[in-house]
């Protein structure tokens, strides 16, 4: 957790089930009228006749932390009123229907938070060193690649 002038950037990689309420509480602030949130979950899917049963995540943990900090610096440069940013990402096995990522941003008004959260999710996918492998009901698996 980084604190500067009452603003915090919180990043956590977790092998446990993610708590939405914990992420929301982490960004709560009485100076903020808006909290924007994004939850990414493992979707039930079929790929070439095989059913996806879950995802297996891994990360380059220290570098992920520092790339997250860069994203937050960038967010604060673009949307200076953004108050707190909190991102929790799962590692290890995440079965269909469970959250792999929860991001929340608090801001005095809603527009900047809603724009900032889209930027954080895009940048997370583009620059934070995390990887997932789709695991199928046939026991096969394949590493994914973010399109964006």
């Amino acid at each position, binding site marked *: 957790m980084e604190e500067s002038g009452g603003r915090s950037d919180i990043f956590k990689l977790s092998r446990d089930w993610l708590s939405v309420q914990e992420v929301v509480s982490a960004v709560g602030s009485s100076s903020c009228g808006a909290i924007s949130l994004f939850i990414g979950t493992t979707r039930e899917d079929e790929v070439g006749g095989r059913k996806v049963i879950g995802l297996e995540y891994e990360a380059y943990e220290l570098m992920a932390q520092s790339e997250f900090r860069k994203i937050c610096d960038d967010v604060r440069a673009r949307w200076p009123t953004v108050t707190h940013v909190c991102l929790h990402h799962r590692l290890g096995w995440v079965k269909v229907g469970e959250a792999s990522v929860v991001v929340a941003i608090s801001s005095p008004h809603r527009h900047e938070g809603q724009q900032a959260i889209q930027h954080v999710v895009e940048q*997370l996918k583009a620059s934070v060193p995390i990887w997932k492998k789709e695991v199928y009901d046939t026991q096969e698996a394949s590493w994914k690649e973010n399109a964006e």
Partner: protein
Amino acid sequence: MSAQVCVLYFAKSVELTGLKEEEFVAVPTPISSRDLWRLLLQRHPRLSLLQHQVVLAVRQQYVAIGDQVVTLEDGDEVAVVPPLSGG
């Protein structure tokens, strides 16, 4: 000059090398990122499956494979970074 660096593998590169990390004892420095990648390929020819998709990270900073020259010190971390898929 040469340096001893720690090479980290992630995602598909773990499967291709069978390793999560290893020491490279005498890496020439300064070195272009392209030559650094060639050294990795020499030791693990199957990494060529990642050619054109992979980037490296040196001391936790991304370096595209190309002409860019990096200077390495003993103990530096070099990572093989296959296409990202977080989120």
